């Protein structure tokens, strides 16, 4: 009985996996999405749309490199604009994947199994989008490598006191570990695809990608420990990346940036927006691929609870900022708070309070959490709120700082919007391709889940069937 999950009641009412699934049905359903199913009109439509946006992005980047960052709305005093807002937003979205994979893995949360694969993919794509911005926003893009401690004859080093350098390390480490974690976790599934593939080229491709996986016990043993170790490695990164991004701001003296709440507040905000993105992807995907049996109401409900918790942490961050600006007695800080709430950008401040604090309180209601449509809407609202939150942090802090004679306003240009829309297109293009080419749900782990939930008897994972033909 010790193996019976604690949330038995919930388990029975809202199972993590729909009853009736077997190892074979799971494998067939998921692998058939790739190997047997022809892409529908909707998919092609999506590809066309996202390709259009990616073309726009390409054009925006070429024009940017040709002309200079002046094509954006940045100015003095607001020298950071959409680029940094988008960077922080995308990096935040990228947090949920690793949080689900690593943190929930370490915490033995069963429900992570059916959402971890695509959440990890989402992380990678979001980090790829995020990674573009710090390079693109440079005045001299072609000198981006100055940021790395590369060997050079001048023996010049980056300035290790600057948080931006640590940003480079944090993001690149995160991207590397996330990629490894994702790929390692996919190896048994790639082998399944190899074995189930019909055409020769596909077989060879998946064969190469699966690194000669044969499903031997020793493979499984090494696989499991590698996966766990990578999970252990990735878990602290969930905290570190956005902490470092938070320190990009708290390292400055700008009122609104210079505060110690930034790292935890950024991490919570990241997971908040990340889970919103998970929902944004999961809800249409489970409908399109008929995955309702794998991604159940239980998942959506759990995501809703996480949104509620992280949303409350974010709300605490907002409250703490306001409190500290009053409690510190600092004229600049108190003006900043006042200006955020009542200055020319006040609509953004009240928008984030509505999107990130007030509306998410509906998540206390089970009815809301278990309504697919409500949750999709909620996810959209939170994504918007979190983007605007970064806008508030970056832009309203800068636009009125110490010298009233040097204040300004920020007016985004067409190219600002084009770049944002372009990265959104890039993200979804990657995701659409991923959904066509790679298993969106981990087959091997699902089989393990079938084993633990339906067989009623628990066997160590190592002995679960390697793959089913």
């Amino acid at each position: 009985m010790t193996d019976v999950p604690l949330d038995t009641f919930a388990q029975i009412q809202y199972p993590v996996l729909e009853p009736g699934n077997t190892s074979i049905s799971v494998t067939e359903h998921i692998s058939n999405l790739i190997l047997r199913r022809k892409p529908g009109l909707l998919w092609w439509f999506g590809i066309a749309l996202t390709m259009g946006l990616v073309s726009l992005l390409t054009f925006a980047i070429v024009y940017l490199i040709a002309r200079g960052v002046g094509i954006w709305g940045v100015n003095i005093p607001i020298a950071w604009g959409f680029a940094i807002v988008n960077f922080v937003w995308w990096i935040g979205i990228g947090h949920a994947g690793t949080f689900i994979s690593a943190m929930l893995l370490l915490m033995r949360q069963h429900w992570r199994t059916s959402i971890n694969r695509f959440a990890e993919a989402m992380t990678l794509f979001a980090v790829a989008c995020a990674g573009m911005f710090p390079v693109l926003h440079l005045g001299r893009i072609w000198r981006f490598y100055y940021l790395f401690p590369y060997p050079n004859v001048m023996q010049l080093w980056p300035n290790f006191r600057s948080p931006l350098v640590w940003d480079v390390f944090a993001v690149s480490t995160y991207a590397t570990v996330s990629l490894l974690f994702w790929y390692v976790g996919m190896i048994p599934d790639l082998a399944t695809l190899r074995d189930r593939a019909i055409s020769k080229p596909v077989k060879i491709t998946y064969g190469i990608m699966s690194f000669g996986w044969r499903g031997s016990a020793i493979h499984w043993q090494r696989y499991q420990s590698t996966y766990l170790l990578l999970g252990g490695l990735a878990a602290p990164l969930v905290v570190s990346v956005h902490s470092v991004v938070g320190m990009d701001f708290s390292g400055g003296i700008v009122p609104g940036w210079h505060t110690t709440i930034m790292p935890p507040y950024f991490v919570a905000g990241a997971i908040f927006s990340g889970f919103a993105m998970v929902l944004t992807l999961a809800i249409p995907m489970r409908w399109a691929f008929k995955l309702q049996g794998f991604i159940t109401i239980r998942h959506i409900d759990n995501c809703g609870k996480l949104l509620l918790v992280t949303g409350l942490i974010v709300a605490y961050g907002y409250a703490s900022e306001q409190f500290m600006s009053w409690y510190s007695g600092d004229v600049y800080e108190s003006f900043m708070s006042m200006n955020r709430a009542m200055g020319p950008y006040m609509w953004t401040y009240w928008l984030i309070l509505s999107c990130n604090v007030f509306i998410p309180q509906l998540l206390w209601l089970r009815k809301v959490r278990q309504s697919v449509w409500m949750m999709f809407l909620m996810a959209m609202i939170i994504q918007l709120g979190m983007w605007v939150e970064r806008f508030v942090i970056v832009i309203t802090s800068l636009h009125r700082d110490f010298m009233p004679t040097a204040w300004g306003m920020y007016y985004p240009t067409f190219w600002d919007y084009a770049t944002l829309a372009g990265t959104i297109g890039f993200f979804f293009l990657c995701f659409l391709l991923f959904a066509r080419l790679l298993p969106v749900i981990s087959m091997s782990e699902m089989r393990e889940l079938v084993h633990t939930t339906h067989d009623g008897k628990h066997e160590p994972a190592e002995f679960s069937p390697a793959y089913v033909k």
Partner: protein
Amino acid sequence: MDSDSANLVAMTGDLASIRARLAARGGPALWRGLDELAGDDEFFRKLGDEFAPGAAEWDDAASRRNFLKLMGASLALAGMVGCNDQPQETIVPYVNPPEQVVPGRPTFYATAMPFSGYALGALAESHEGRPTKIEGNPAHSASLGASNVFMQASVLDLYDPDRSKLVTHGDMSTSWGAFYSAMSAHLASRRKDGAGVRLLTRSITSPSLAIQIDEFLKRYPGAQWHVHDPTRRAGCCGRNGGGPGQAVYDFSKADVILSLDADFMFYDVGSLAYARQFMDGRRRKPGTDADRQNMNRLYVIESSFSLTGTMADHRKAVKPSQIEPIAQALASRLGVADAGKPSFSSEMEQWLDAVAADLKAPLDDLRSVGLKAANGGVAVVVAADHHSPALQALAFAMNQALGSIGKAVRYIEPVEKQGAGTIESLASDMAAGKVDTLLIVGGNPAYDAPADVQFQNVLRKLSNARDAAGNSANFTAHLASHKDETSFECQWHIPESHYLEAWGDLRAYDGTPSIIQPLILPLSSASRSAWEFMAAALGQPDQGGYEIVRAHWQPFWKKQQDAHKEQKKPEREFQVWWESVLREGIIVGFAPSPGVPGEGNALQDLKEPACESTGNSTAFSAGPSQPASAPNPDAWEIVFRLDMCVWDGQYANNPWLMELPRPFTKLVWENAALMSYRSAEKLGVTEQSLIKVAYAGRALELPVLIVPGQADEVLTLHLGFGRTQAGHVADDPDGKIRGYNAYFLQTAASPGMGIGVQISKAAGNGNLVMTRSHHAMAALPGMKVPSESGRLKPRAIEHPGMDDQEIGVLNRKLVRTATLEQFQDDANWVTRLGGDTEMKARGLSDEKLFKGRKIQLSLYPDKDHGGWDYSKGYQWAMSIDQTACIGCNACVVACQAENNIPVVGKDECGRQREMQWIRIDDWYGTQPNEPRIDGVDAVDEPQITHQPVPCMHCENAPCELVCPVGATTHSAEGLNEMTYNRCIGTRYCSNNCPYKVRRFNFFLFADFETPSRALQYNPDVTVRSRGVMEKCTYCVQRLNETRMDIEKMTVGLEDRARAAEGDGTPAGAAEAKRIRALIPSSQTDLLGQLQTACQQSCPTQAIVFGDKNQPNSPIAKVREDQLSYGLLEDLTTKPRTTYLGRLSNPNRKLSKAGVSA
């Protein structure tokens, strides 16, 4: 043949040669492209000429460099034209004899810049033969080493590619010789006495040019000479010999100064000297008995804020028509007979009483702490020259009554050549057919003549008139630097040489003559100076400016010798004198004779001014004895002023000046209709709304700009915009005209102002761009700019005695002002305003605890700043005196010229991307004293404090910490340095700069391609490329040069000392000691000469710079001054740039409390 067909021929010619080349090849004709085939780029360059260089960028308004590129493209040709033989004329450098010219080190030559026709002594910096920068000549009485924006920017005019390069006749280019033969033939064909021949010039102060004009008039007795000069709107008084002469002031001798609408610190031809003198009388003298005691007082009565008005201790904004009645009222209080007695409200009467009392017994109100008038109580009255002669007469009478003539003001024989006709009489003669020959020497009357003169029309008719045979009946020629509006209406256009290209002479505001010494051969061989043009008119087309000017001064030299009854020196001695004159930049011994004021009642003498035309009667020409007509208080009045940057329009093609933020409006690239908030509210318009201004039968539509300190129902228009033929800079990239031509409303009778203006709302809005968020204060929480009473509420200045309970922004202690008396009461008020932290940091608060002990603001050890020890070596620092800064912008342009700072264009300014390294923050603040007796709330008449903000060079620089690549670092000498090569443009440094003094190259703003632009660049300063951050460097190139000089000098001395010691004798040791003693003194000397560009240009010497480790250096002293403070010091940035709090000296008797006391 038109140019298109010429191109076609050239192209077909090339195609033919390509065919020939193709035929010459053996085997199958294969080629990758025509360029390969043609084998040269020339062909394609010709093809490409169809599109101007940079034309591809014209579609994008964001690109501003296109105009500079275009500007420069054609100058390559001009440069080549300049490479021809010229007669050898020796010029003499200012300080360094020619044999000491060191390549890579600049040479300075003394010359003189024409400014409104008058001389401003200049030192032109020459790098291997190309002038790069203009400084003031310290020996020259009109500049005293300082400069203004026009001097600084004039060097860019030299290299303006839009300058005309060829003599043209209609549309055809021709030659100087052709022009000369046409002119002489025409003059010969006329009647012998020359009736119908007219000469039109600007104000003439040049002695040699004056004689040429006299000779011309002698040769053609029927000819007439006219002057039109919008920059010199002197009333008849003084100009045509009827008045007391030209007033020359010495403000350092005055204790109380009353300005009647006179902006003597900026508009006047002597403004640089006047600003210096004024500050000499105002500045504290720390360390002397006079410290905290002597300070002059300035009253300004004006309609619209002027720079002088911002310096006023008491300022009254009144309608222009009120200025003369006020002057009358004051004059009668001062005992001037016949002055008239207009009546005012009782508050105003009281105010006038107090001012008159202060003029009579200067500074009598100050408490008996020892304050007294430094000059024994001299008061002086200054009247604006754009008012009627009556106002000049009143000022003269008041000065006479006050006994200040001979002390603070003297009247001299007018410096300008007298006896010219006006442009109105010329135009009416032209219209009447009395004119057949018109020679226009300089100026641009078709653009800048008052509209009612219709000069452009009559000139066009004159030029186009044909005789019966169909030949041109008349002869019109124009000498001008550009083919401008006037040139297009004349038959002939002759390019005018820049003052750095041609010889000449000029006199300064006080009559001192100077020689204009050229530094470079004319860039176009066709260009001629006014002197050469006049010589041609006198029949000597080949006479060079050098000969003319030198020949003029030879008799003067002889006369001077005779006067001194010295032994007659041989003629070659003249050369010695001549060279010394050139070297020094002034001619001594040419004092103007004093004017002869009439005996007895001065006003009676002046009642009949010998003015040629009195014009239509307006309120302003009312004689002083007539009762002042009380104008309708609700009627709108209009004021015309020269623009503070493009002046009368002659600098409209100068990008530095176009983009220079106008003082206190911060408007760039165009002009607007200035009005007060209350007036705008009454009209129902807001800023940027277009209004239709109807005046004197014409109407103009332009946008509104609301300014504080403007009298209600007064509209101020700035002249100089709306040029149609100025060049590429003056034209909008869209081909629209920049700004609005206010000359279109001007009348000849009353060019400075007028009443009877009808203003109505027009549809639409303007697109004015200001370089600061103009309404920053408007959107502040809990704060509205216009309060219910329509008053501005710009209380952002820290002042003792004012509560600072306003929300955060007002409590930042950025600007600190006090009155002289408050300073006497509390010498530490500047620190006290900074609050507890600053008090503790200075060891001032809580005597028992902190006596003599300074508290550190930071937890970190004081020494730990990048590992440098700031107690050693040179430690550069700057201090800016806010009492002295008049906000004239000279430092901004000086910095731009010195440091190769690009311009970005109007659109980029609108996107807040301007590049000037210094920004001048103008803070409106209220006068701190008690309620005023005239009932005016000080809020209505704010005081402006100018605060120039360069880089602070913080010892704890926030920018350095955050740069990921270490592109901005600290030097051992305390400079915050930019390494442009290392910068990748993350822009975090700018975000983290609390002062926002960093500037970013958002596009490729710098011009690397235009050859002429390259000529002006300072070779010691990097031209920054796209994507890098830049900012004030404290002119590090100048610091490096001085440091190297000191090192060279001291190293040499040390060697000599060692050599002297070598013999071991006591005499040798003594000699070594003597030599070693020279080391610090030579160091001090060189450091004393070191000036940053902004400091050097400052007319009031508000900027002090130097090594703060030198114990007796001015900067070390001023940093210890009680008024010294740093911006945002509570952030512990430890700025190296500090400020001195602003002091003012208001009259206690003008406050209610002061009266009852």
